[in-house]
């Protein structure tokens, strides 16, 4: 057995039913105690490879070539029953969303013990004892009784850790971790990352770590494989890939993360003309207050970033300014006059001057209208443009957001995510607005695409003097685009100031933690972060 690596995948090919190659001739080796990071954007095939390590493919995909050897045995040559004996027992999987991957009808303990019992590796009693050990190792509260709960009865971070316990329940040789921290808030992500790393080291398992976040993989992986369009782009030791990337693609990925660490442009402190003022705004959903006492202002040509974790009320602020939800208290002033709370009470010109761009471009465009109709409608609606004049203006707007004019004929389904988001921006610009509210506009996009969108927004601001209200959870984006920052937590305003002022407040209890939790592109960051935490 010592002659063979734990996992040895050679020339793996995974094909979709339509014939597209999702993974094209990828090989990888995994030795005991090592962690291999698989990194890439969506569609790079990294999750497909992770699942293929268990000789499993999703419906609609097939493993059509290559070998998948576990300790010398090629799983592709075994029948389905023999492969099942490996899954869970020798090689275990941790999914991105624990909330979806746990069965809501069974207790955590039932699900964690199921593997060892069904594989005939342990009795139920031993499996339970092992589970409690794992709960303890993973810092779960009340380990002896934690397993009696149902999945929906514990928090997201705890559930993700319970999933790790489930994966470890059979004492596998290999853990496959598929974006295990992506669905979590930044501060929770750190906790899970620390525990994962400790567990991998203590239990001496090998791990395949799939993520799109270079900074996360830097903290945990020994080696990194960069994938793109199902092919291997670059492979090497973690530090080498991060410090000395050899391919253009890897360099671009690293550069994008580095840019997130430093402000891209100077912050002007002069604030010319204020367009939007929020004065002690409250918003409630039924009896529950989502946001209370929020005050800040926005000037022409300026970007104010509203930042906070999920549930902080930052999207509620955006919706109340847009008029989708009515503020229940306080005042919103727009260009010197009072802004009526609901969009139905606002006149057409006011609606025109405040435009909203959503997080998910997929659902923000009507799938049955052509791009030309989508961008052209505000032109007709607000300015009465028709026929030739309208198509000419649609062409101008498409060029403005960097899309070919021919796209006017296409349907949204034929565009990529980044292109769709550009169409959304063009639609907002068609109204010639003063204020554009950007609600997490880049968070559904891959980093390189997101960066292009940020550059586009920045350029448009310089050309057209737009004011942006930028709703985001990503500090990197704030650094790159925000002139001023409003920090929200639990529906209350924590701080408001220029970007430089906010990022200087590292001793502030909430802001400091938020800043410190963002992983840096540096293999030693997590260790330093832990030292600082124990020191303070």
């Amino acid at each position, binding site marked *: 057995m010592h002659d063979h690596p734990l996992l040895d995948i050679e020339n793996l090919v995974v094909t979709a039913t*339509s014939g597209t190659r999702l993974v094209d001739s990828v090989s990888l080796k995994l030795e005991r105690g090592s962690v291999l990071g698989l990194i890439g954007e969506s569609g790079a095939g990294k999750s497909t490879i992770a699942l293929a390590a268990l000789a499993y493919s999703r419906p609609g995909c097939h493993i059509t070539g290559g070998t998948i050897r576990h300790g010398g045995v090629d799983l592709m040559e075994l029948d389905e029953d023999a492969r099942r004996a490996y899954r869970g027992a020798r090689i275990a999987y941790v999914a991105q969303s624990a909330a979806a991957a746990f069965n809501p009808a069974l207790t955590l303990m039932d699900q964690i013990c199921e593997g060892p019992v069904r594989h005939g590796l342990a009795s139920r009693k031993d499996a339970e004892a092992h589970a409690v050990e794992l709960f303890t190792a993973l810092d779960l509260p009340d380990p002896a009784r934690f397993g009696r709960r149902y999945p929906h009865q514990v928090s997201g971070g705890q559930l993700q850790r319970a999933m790790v316990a489930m994966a470890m329940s059979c004492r596998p040789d290999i853990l496959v971790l598929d974006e295990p921290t992506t669905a979590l808030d930044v501060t929770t992500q750190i906790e899970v990352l620390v525990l994962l790393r400790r567990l991998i080291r203590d239990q001496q398992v090998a791990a395949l770590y799939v993520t799109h976040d270079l900074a996360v993989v830097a903290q945990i992986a020994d080696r990194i494989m960069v994938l793109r369009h199902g092919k291997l782009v670059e492979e090497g030791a973690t530090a080498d890939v991060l410090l000395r990337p050899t391919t253009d693609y890897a360099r671009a990925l690293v550069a994008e993360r580095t840019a997130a660490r430093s402000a891209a442009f100077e912050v002007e402190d002069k604030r010319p003309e204020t367009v939007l003022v929020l004065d002690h705004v409250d918003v409630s959903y039924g009896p529950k207050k989502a946001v209370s006492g929020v005050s800040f202002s926005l000037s022409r040509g300026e970007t104010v970033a509203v930042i906070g974790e999920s549930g902080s009320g930052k999207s509620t602020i955006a919706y109340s300014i*847009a*008029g*989708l939800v009515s503020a229940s208290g306080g005042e919103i002033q727009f260009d010197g006059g009072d802004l009526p709370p609901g*969009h139905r009470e*606002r006149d*057409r010109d006011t*609606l*025109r001057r405040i435009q*909203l761009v*959503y997080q*998910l471009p997929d*659902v*923000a*465009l*009507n*799938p*049955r*209208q052509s791009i030309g109709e989508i961008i052209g*409608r*505000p032109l007709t*609606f*607000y300015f009465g443009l028709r026929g030739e004049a309208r198509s000419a203006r649609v062409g101008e707007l498409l060029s403005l957001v960097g899309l070919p004019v021919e796209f006017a004929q296409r*349907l*949204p*389904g*034929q565009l990529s995510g980044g292109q769709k988001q550009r169409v959304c921006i063009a*639609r907002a610009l068609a*109204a010639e607005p003063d204020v554009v509210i950007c609600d997490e506009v880049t968070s559904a996009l891959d980093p390189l695409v997101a960066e292009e969108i940020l550059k586009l927004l920045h350029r448009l601001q310089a050309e057209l003097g737009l004011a942006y209200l930028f709703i985001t959870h990503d500090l990197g984006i704030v650094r790159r685009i925000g002139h001023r920052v409003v920090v929200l937590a639990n529906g209350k305003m924590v701080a408001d100031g220029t970007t430089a002022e906010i990022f200087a407040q590292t001793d502030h209890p909430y802001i400091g933690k938020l800043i410190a939790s963002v992983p840096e592109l540096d293999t030693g960051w997590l260790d330093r972060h832990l030292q600082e935490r124990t020191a303070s």
Partner: protein
Amino acid sequence: MKLFGSRLSTPALIGIALLVAIVGAGLLAPWIAPYGETDLVGDVWAPPSLAFPLGTDNLGRDMLSRLLFATRTTLTVVILSTIVAFALGVAIGFLSALIGGLIDQLISALVNVIMAVPVLIVALMVLAVLGTSVPVLILTMGILEATRVYRLARAVANGLIVQEFVRIAALRGEGWRWIVWREILPNAVPALVAEFGLRFCFIFLFVASLSFLGLGVQPPFADWGAMVHDNTAAINLGGLAPFYPAAAIAVTTIAVNLIVDWLLSVHARPAGIKE
């Protein structure tokens, strides 16, 4: 072959072929039927022969000719009922979803009450009061099935209203006409078309049941259900007379069901994505 931009499955093709054949037979009945609809041409319940391919009925009329002519009555009644159900159900369903609030809840409550009792029972009660005639039959079936259409239309519209592209239109200041016709309806079409087929089947079977119970289409007209009703006594003599119209009913519903199954599988795919 393609329809709505998606390839037709083999069962769907079979369904369409059957449906075309049935509608064609109905349209061409006067030319292809060997005898007149009401002509007494032979013995009562004569067995199938060269002269009468499907035998004769309880009065000695040619079964095949009757069957062909009845296609017209059957399909007319069912299609008109389905159209009434759709016009009412979709209009009120969309309106209800759009207006929301108290009016929406009142209409929904009323629909729930009507749906709390089986269609057949309510239809029987209405027919007991109003008597049986074809217009009453069409309106009754149409209004009762409209409640089912209403539920779907309202659910579809509610699902679309919260879509962000509809919110964007609302935020632009668009009126309800634009929102309904341009934003909601085009996206609701696949679901509504599948529902149309499904409703057609239900109404088809219900009208057949009512006619079978002697409460649907009345003599001298006959639809397939009524033909079964007229010929039931042949069963105990070992005759197959009631089977032909009953089989025609089954074939039609199977044909529509095959098409609906395909429509539903297409509809499950996200809109706008091309293969």
